[in-house]
């Protein structure tokens, strides 16, 4: 039996962000919700940036959004990405407001344009880690 080790960077272990990764593993995309003023924000932090309340929860979002921008990395800043070059990274505005950085999956058209619709997919890249990624609508 061969074991392949996942050699790309893992999430930084951050107490505020842990639930996000746990939800992703279960196939849910969540953002942080302020239980006092209702503000939605991402990535997760210790208090609400709108009202400073520390009573916050995670709210599942629709998983739909629009493509704001995208780039292709031709340089591997981590060895684990060497075999993927060039790989894409996208910036998505979720329908609920917050922005998220992720990757586009699936075939990309010759002429990609900002503003197109995208939908989340869940990519279990290792036993421990599931990355929310996006496919073009």
């Amino acid at each position, binding site marked *: 039996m061969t074991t392949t080790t996942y050699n*790309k*960077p*893992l*999430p*930084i272990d*951050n107490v505020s*962000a842990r639930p996000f990764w746990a939800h992703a593993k279960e196939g849910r995309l969540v953002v942080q919700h302020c239980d006092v003023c209702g503000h939605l924000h991402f*990535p997760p932090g210790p208090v609400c940036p709108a009202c400073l309340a520390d009573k916050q929860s995670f709210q599942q979002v629709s998983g739909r959004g629009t493509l*704001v*921008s*995208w*780039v*292709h*990395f*031709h*340089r591997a*800043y*981590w060895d684990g*990405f060497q075999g*993927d070059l*060039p*790989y894409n*990274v996208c*910036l998505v505005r979720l329908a609920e407001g917050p*922005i998220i*950085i*992720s*990757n586009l999956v699936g075939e990309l058209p010759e002429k990609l*344009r*900002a*503003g197109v619709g995208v939908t989340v997919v869940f990519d279990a*890249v290792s036993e421990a*880690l599931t*990355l929310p*990624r996006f496919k073009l609508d």
Partner: protein
Amino acid sequence: MTMGDLKELRNKIAVVGVGNTAYGNFPEIEDYGLGAQAFSRALDDCGLERDQIDGLLVCRVPYYARMGEVLGVHPRWTATMPPHGRMSGMGIIEAMMALQCGAAQYVALIYTNIGRSRRVTYGGEDASSFWDPWGFTSPGGAHAMMFRMHMEQYGTTTRQLAEVSVAFRKHAILYPDAIMKKPITIDDHETAKFIVEPLRLLDYCLISDGATCLIMTTADRARDLRKRPVLISGVGAKDDYHDASVLNFAQDCWYGPLQKVAQESYEMAGVSPADVSALMCYDNFSPTVLFSLEGLGFCKRGESGPYVEGGTLALGGKLPTNTDGGHLSNTYMQGWAHNIEAVRQLRGECGARQVPDCKVVQFVQATPCTRSIVYTLG
């Protein structure tokens, strides 16, 4: 002076001495050694004695107290800035305020960088963030993301972006201390290898070893020194941390903060963009220059691409910018060398790269901490 009104500081504080080391790859010199060399040259430049320095601001220097020990400088005011490419404008404004309120009489601002010889990459393990698992990293990645947005919103092209790198390279060739000496064309830019597409190698700053030193004092004290003082006539400041989780990124490419610092600094100095003889523009990546031109009002929003076409930013063009070659072709001293160049241009010390009739020089940094400084000759 009313509380919070920086306008009262117009022309009150001067840069009186500047110095820099050679720039390049110096594995055999420690950062404190580079800092000491720049400090000695700045002292020579203004004619002050070492023991007159009673304020010390350091940036990217590992330990301020060791710097003081190495230099034999034991000030009454010390400040230390993190090694981020936005601290030059901030540091100069901090020193201005310290001098104005009498916390110190003569401040030395020392910056050192040994990133070239020590192989700093500014991405991956060097700059961990929340987005690492998706492979998103490095300030260049963020600038590529912003430039794509600019391309999509305004139709800006990479050939227009190339004008920035081409102009600055021309300047570096005329500046003996600058690292990059090979002429480049727009086509060279278009065929350079991608780093984070749409940005190519020639859109990226250098990574270099070196050090700089500025010495500042009040305009009154400056009169007794070796050279004509260069006055800080206007400053503007605005921080925007909305998107700080994405290092070096702003959804509006800092248009809002740039407009604010432009208004503040032009109003304080009593000048407008039309009066600016030369611009020293923070250029960690070439798109920042386009964003800065729009936010400062040199052109309309979205029109920086057409504006820079045809050599606008080169010597002899409408707005000579980064006449030392900037971060793209001189050296990566994170804005500090830009401010030194502003001083030398106003003094008329720039030889082949001198801007004729140079009266007003502006420094700008479009970063999460956006700053503008307008300099004039005292």
